[in-house]
């Protein structure tokens, strides 16, 4: 029983390959949700309308303080009790998107708050509207320092997709579990899953850093 079986590895590889596509879709989809929702959370906390600010703040705090796994279960299993029936994919993307939106909103917020007050004042002095000020002045300056954090969460969300296996999303972890259960062998499937994650995470992290530098250069923030 002990010992690596290459033929078994080769046999399960196509199945793991397909599951990898699902993992990438889950990560990409969840990330897209998180990027947009996170910006909404961040901007909502900056409106002059107090109740909205307070509620958003509390929601973000709540999401950040409870486990992702619980949130996945909650949306998938508790939802139907209130008439909200979601497929594993929809529930999964919602949960993971919402979870990472909370974290990303903090990264955005940090970036926006890092833009000096003088920039807002100069924007007002040339009479830019609030929307123009965000779009033309604040976001372009808030983004580069936030990019490292934003990119790290891309890798983070990717590594958290295995949690979706608990509600039956057929991603990598789910596939590896099934293979293991069918063949009573876990060494190869789990090892391969680990290697696939590594093979995607490392280049992604590297690309994120490259992208950050490129953006900074394009905006003239580094020489």
């Amino acid at each position: 029983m002990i010992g690596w079986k290459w033929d078994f590895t080769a046999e399960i590889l196509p199945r793991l390959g397909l599951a990898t596509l699902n993992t990438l879709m889950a990560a990409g989809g969840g990330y897209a949700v998180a990027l947009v929702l996170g910006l909404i959370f961040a901007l909502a906390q900056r409106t002059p309308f107090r109740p909205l600010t307070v509620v958003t703040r509390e929601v973000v705090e709540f999401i950040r303080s409870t486990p992702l796994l619980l949130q996945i279960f909650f949306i998938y299993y508790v939802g139907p009790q209130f008439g909200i029936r979601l497929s594993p994919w929809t529930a999964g993307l919602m949960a993971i998107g919402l979870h990472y939106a909370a974290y990303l909103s903090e990264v955005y917020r940090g970036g926006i708050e890092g833009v000096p007050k003088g920039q807002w004042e100069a924007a007002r002095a040339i009479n830019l509207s609030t929307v123009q000020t965000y779009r033309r002045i604040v976001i372009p300056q808030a983004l580069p320092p936030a990019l490292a954090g934003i990119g790290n969460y891309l890798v983070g969300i990717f590594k958290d997709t295995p949690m979706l296996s608990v509600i039956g999303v057929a991603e990598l972890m789910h596939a590896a579990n099934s293979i293991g259960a069918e063949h009573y062998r876990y060494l190869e499937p789990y090892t391969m899953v680990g290697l696939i994650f590594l093979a995607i995470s490392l280049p992604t992290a590297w690309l994120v850093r490259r992208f950050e530098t490129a953006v900074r250069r394009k905006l003239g923030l580094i020489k």
Partner: protein
Amino acid sequence: MTDDMSRYPLTLEGDDAPMVRFQNVTKKYGDLTVLDRLDLDVGAGEMVTIIGPSGSGKTTVLRMLMTLETIDSGVIYVDGEPLTHMERNGRLVRANAAHMRRMRSKIGMCFQHFNLFPHMTALGNCMEGPVQVLGMSKKEAEERALELLDMVGMAEKRDQHPARLSGGQQQRVAIARALAMRPKVMLFDEVTSALDPEVISEVTGVIRALVDQHNLTMLMVTHQMGFAREISDRVCFFFDGSIEEQGTPEMLFDSPEKERTQQFLSAVLEAN
């Protein structure tokens, strides 16, 4: 705030109407009164300099006029119309965002720390407002921006980002950026305070040229008494949130009447 709004006129009319009027303006931060019932008129084309110790409310005057600060009572008028208020059914009410935005277009401001947009070139900084706010075409805005950069001696550096420019150069670009919006009133808030001594004259030279060649109304807060004396039509000495004494530069610097003015000026002269 019990402020009887009926005592403030809806508009300022007549040939002698000032370009800027502060009428009974009070500004507080919590318990601290920064400006106490300030009355100040600045005539069209006049250059008025505000001097005084720190914390006397000098900068606040400019910031209120740029609508960077709200006021607690009183009314500020610009170019005959209320800035902080607007007319509704024959009486003045607090200005809404649209009114302030319209009025703000009459005012330009330069800051102590320049506040250029770091992600834009010198030219981009000067085109941003004209293109985004005034709706000028890029070509037209660029021509105008280049003219102004040339005027402040920065045309050669048009494609440089602020990080590549010295403080004096950045401030000159900032002046061009403000002028590109064609304001009627220019505000200079300690524009030379953050500069190395050897480049101060670059900036004062530009302001001097503006005073000589353009009919702009200007308000300047400065610690440079020599420059204030040379360039101002009128100098106001602020103390503790109000104008302690004002007059022509000769009157204020050569024969100040108030004791506080004398103390301040002798302290400043000693420091120099």
